[in-house]
């Protein structure tokens, strides 16, 4: 299993530098928002937790066009289906590779941004929440990548599919991140986010496996 995971991760990071790109994209998108809103620090501090969450969602879309498409093109997916390892397990590894390549670096960048831009909103739970959110977005992203496999407009469709499905973790996550600013406890939204993440990350590999099998075997 481990060599397969390393190879999957290498496919995303070594040739394409997805981990660096995620952080750079995260910083650029956040800067674009700041330029759009204006640099007034007190306004900015209030909306930073929500802003960081929305940008985290956007940066999770980055790796999706590469996630399964190259494996589909060089028929690695056929090997996956024929392999003795169950397809859902391989899809779970794919999801972990996507988390390691985009969600993890973007979540770290997001935590640092909140620390620098809105220190009042910074707490240990914030980092945990952002990581959980990144995992949710990757799980939903797996579904988007599987559904659009073989389409010529995959990247656009992935954004249209993933964003509405990502609304629940976004709402709970941003709620938890903004809780310290409102002086309320982040426990409720954080537990809802954790519950969503666990369900999404458990179910997504099975759904993605079924969709990939359908794609590869539909004549």
């Amino acid at each position, binding site marked *: 299993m481990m060599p397969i995971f390393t190879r999957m991760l290498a496919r995303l990071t070594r040739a394409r530098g997805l981990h660096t790109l995620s952080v750079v994209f995260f910083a650029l998108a956040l800067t674009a928002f700041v330029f759009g809103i204006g640099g007034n620090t007190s306004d900015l501090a209030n909306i930073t937790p929500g802003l960081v969450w929305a940008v985290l969602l956007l940066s999770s879309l980055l790796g999706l066009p590469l996630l399964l498409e190259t494996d589909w093109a060089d028929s690695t997916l056929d090997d996956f289906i024929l392999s003795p390892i169950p397809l859902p397990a391989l899809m779970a590894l794919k999801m972990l590779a996507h988390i390691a390549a985009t969600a993890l670096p973007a979540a770290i960048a997001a935590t640092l941004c909140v620390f620098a831009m809105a220190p009042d909103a910074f707490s240990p739970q914030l980092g945990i929440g952002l990581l959980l959110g990144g995992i949710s977005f990757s799980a939903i992203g797996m*579904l988007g990548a599987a559904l659009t496999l*073989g*389409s010529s407009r995959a990247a656009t469709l992935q954004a*249209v599919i993933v964003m509405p*499905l990502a609304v629940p973790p976004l709402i709970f996550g941003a709620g938890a991140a903004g809780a310290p600013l409102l002086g309320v406890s982040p426990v409720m939204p954080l537990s809802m986010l954790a519950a969503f993440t666990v369900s999404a990350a458990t179910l997504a590999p099975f759904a993605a496996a*079924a969709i990939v099998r359908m794609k590869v075997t*539909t004549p």
Partner: protein
Amino acid sequence: MINLSYFANPARFERLAKTLMPVLATVATILLPLGLVDALLISPPDYQQGDAVRIMYIHVPSAWLSMATYAACGVAAIIAIVWKHTLAELFLRAALPFGAAATAMCLVTGMLWGKPMWGTWWVWDARLTSVLVLFFIYIATIALLDAFDRPEQGGQAAAWLTVIGLVNLPIIKYSVEWWNTLHQPSSLSSMKRMLNPAMAADMIRPLMLMTIGLTCLAAIIVTLRMKIEIMKRKRK
């Protein structure tokens, strides 16, 4: 238990449609004009909302249709995934755009009502947001239908996304009960409330006429669209 695969044959579907269509058309042509006249002219204005309450006679049926169509698509999607019946895929192709139109109608009428009543076109309340998400899911699913060179792939992918999006339906249904929202809870949510409603009979009557009439119209539109899809497939 009805054997669903009995109806999965296009020829049988066309025969069934031939007998059902006149019935649906008759009911719709009688109920819709009656309902419209009742809703717009006969029924009393609300003591708080005035004449703006008449928007409800379009808003509530389109909200019901937006969710009922999605639920029907969910059933069809499961059939399309499990048994790969072409007719279930054709139903998705026919019904998803209609459902999106009903959702758009629900959102637009809601906004038109919200401006005079709440003083704003839009609030980010749980009910409104979840219906907006439903609309986006409709759009994403429709976009998937024609995103592939082979239409069967699009049908299957759209069926999967429809099933995944089913999660949103209970959130919409119970949003007004789970969260304390600006959108009021349903006045006719259960049989108990139906028998002892929080609405005047003069208002329930046009609402029922419009809901049943528009549901028949929906069935007619979706059936016609399915027939067109079958004709397109036959021509290929």
